[in-house]
């Protein structure tokens, strides 16, 4: 009854291509945007921003980038953490070399550095296929983290080896650095994520998205349909690494405020990969759903001892968190490999025909 699609006919191809062929979907999205842009900022406290809202957006963006490469184009990548690092360090160098540069511009530019590195490590995908390709991104992962530590120029020869984000203003508001408020950083991230998600949706539903999916499903057949495999694979690496690099820059500049090389180590890569898998490979929405789950889980677990009155040390909570994530991964891969996005699709189908059973 609520989600009735009866009566909504498409009378032109243009209407058929619309993002929300069903009106209720558009209303739902509008609601989410209102929540994100208006309701949360008015009601959330600093903890909610820093522990939930901002990281969910950043992780969702990183997962979105990874999903384009692994979910749409079928090229497995285990180097997401390192590529995020490239974006972060590139942004840091840009800001320290050009202190007057607008932070948005710096972030947009730093994406190109991670894109270039991503393409470089994506070149092996032209020779090596399937699971063996994991070695290329793993090599990138371990090599780059080593480089972040050894190449002192990256962190301006700082004795601690870490980078600190300076105070940066935009239009009179401090958006980065110790003086920035959690809310301004949230809006900054929300804006960037909204824009990039919009672009990603458009690119994946058009001819380039179709080409990527063809390469993913059967690359020989794709070639025989006239698709240039090299351009398809490398473009996937480029776009994916661009987005991931920006997520990395946001990770440091708009959330953590500082970074050491081991922040971008393999656990980060796996965390983003898990978000993409649990959310649903080949979906845009899934990245957000997965990020909400993965970010909220430790926070919820942290509150459990209070709620149940059982004393559990924070170390144990962390171990439980890791265990549950491992179990979730396994469960999703067995039960619903298409992730939370598929769950949503099923619920939506049921809503459409409700209250009828079928």
């Amino acid at each position: 009854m609520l989600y009735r699609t009866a009566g909504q006919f498409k009378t032109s191809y243009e209407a058929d291509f619309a993002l929300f062929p069903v009106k209720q979907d558009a209303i739902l999205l509008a609601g989410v945007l209102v929540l994100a842009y208006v309701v949360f900022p008015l009601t959330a406290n600093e903890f909610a921003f820093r522990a939930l809202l901002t990281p969910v957006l950043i992780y969702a963006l990183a997962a979105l980038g990874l999903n384009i490469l692994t979910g749409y184009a079928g090229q497995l990548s285990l180097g997401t953490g390192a590529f995020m690092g490239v974006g972060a360090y590139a942004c840091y160098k840009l800001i320290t070399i050009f202190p007057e540069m607008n932070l948005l511009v710096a972030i947009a530019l730093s994406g190109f550095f991670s894109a270039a590195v991503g393409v470089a490590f994506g070149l092996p995908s032209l020779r090596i296929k399937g699971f063996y390709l994991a070695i290329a991104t793993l090599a990138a992962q371990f090599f780059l983290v080593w480089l972040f530590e050894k190449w002192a120029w990256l962190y301006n020869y700082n004795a601690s080896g870490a980078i600190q984000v300076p105070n940066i203003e935009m239009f009179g508001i401090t958006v980065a650095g110790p003086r920035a408020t959690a809310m301004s950083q949230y809006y900054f991230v929300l804006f960037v994520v909204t824009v990039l998600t919009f672009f990603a949706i458009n690119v994946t539903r058009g001819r380039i998205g179709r080409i990527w999916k063809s390469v993913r499903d059967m690359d020989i057949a794709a070639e025989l349909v006239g698709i240039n495999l090299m351009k398809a694979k490398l473009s996937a690496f480029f776009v994916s690494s661009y987005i991931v690099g920006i997520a990395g820059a946001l990770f440091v500049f708009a959330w953590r405020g500082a970074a050491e090389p081991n922040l971008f180590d393999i656990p980060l890569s796996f965390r983003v990969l898990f978000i993409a898998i649990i959310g649903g490979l080949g979906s845009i929405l899934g990245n957000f759903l997965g990020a909400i789950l993965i970010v909220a889980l430790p926070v919820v677990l942290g509150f459990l001892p209070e709620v149940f009155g059982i004393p559990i040390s924070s170390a144990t909570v962390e171990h439980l968190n890791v265990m549950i994530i491992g179990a979730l991964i396994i469960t999703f891969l067995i039960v619903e490999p298409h992730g939370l996005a598929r769950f949503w699709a099923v619920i939506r189908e049921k809503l459409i025909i409700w209250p009828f059973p079928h």
Partner: protein
Amino acid sequence: MNVQVGPDQLLARDDGVAKGEVLLDIRNVSLSFGGVKAITDISFNVLKGEIRAIIGPNGAGKTSMLNVINGFYTPQLGTIVFRGKQRRSMKPHEAVGQGIARTFQNVALFKGMSTLDNIMAGRSVMMKRNIGWQMLWHGPALAEEIEHRRAVEEIIDFLEIQHIRRTPVGKLPYGLQKRVELGRALAMEPSLLLLDEPMAGMNLEEKEDMSRFILDVNQQRGTTIALIEHDMGVVMDLSDRVVVLDYGKKIADDVPDIVKADQNVIDAYLGVPH
């Protein structure tokens, strides 16, 4: 902008060859894998507008021959002349650019995508709007998408697969999958269509449907067709000329009635040692 697209607008592209002239000329092609000789010194041609059947017992080298034609394999000897251009080797996507499309014995569809998307994928070569326009979607990218959607819908109508437009092809029965694959090949607007056992695994009704489609493609659109097929009835009824392969060599090359009666051909199929 409502443009009606009629069948005559999807004729085989203008490829510079007149009906009845030689479109494809295979000259003394030999192909071997390691020590195995798949094709030995074969020559034959395909005329524009005809339906040419390639037949022979299993292992005769028929699929290898198709693979050579569309550039998947490079022969060690011999040349191929297509639309007047001579070459020995060609990359597969170059072949597509030249106007060669094909289907496969084991259906090579993109299993994760719908029928519509699979056939739209066939238009990839003709779609050009770069990523900048794609990011915006509205404007030139959407216009291009709509333009090609019209062409694809025309093919979907022609092949009578409207009802499975949005179904993921992995879920379709085998016979329909083969039809979708034909649709994808047609979407490339080929001059030469290579069909590798298009009727394999089909029942009588499905074969009749497929035969009708193949004939229509040839007669309505003027597409030249080369097909591999085992069903002799189909071969004799559909094709204009037949070439017979056995153990990688050509043993007959003529119109169906004559080939049917050729003793060498009969021996090859019956397994008479020779």
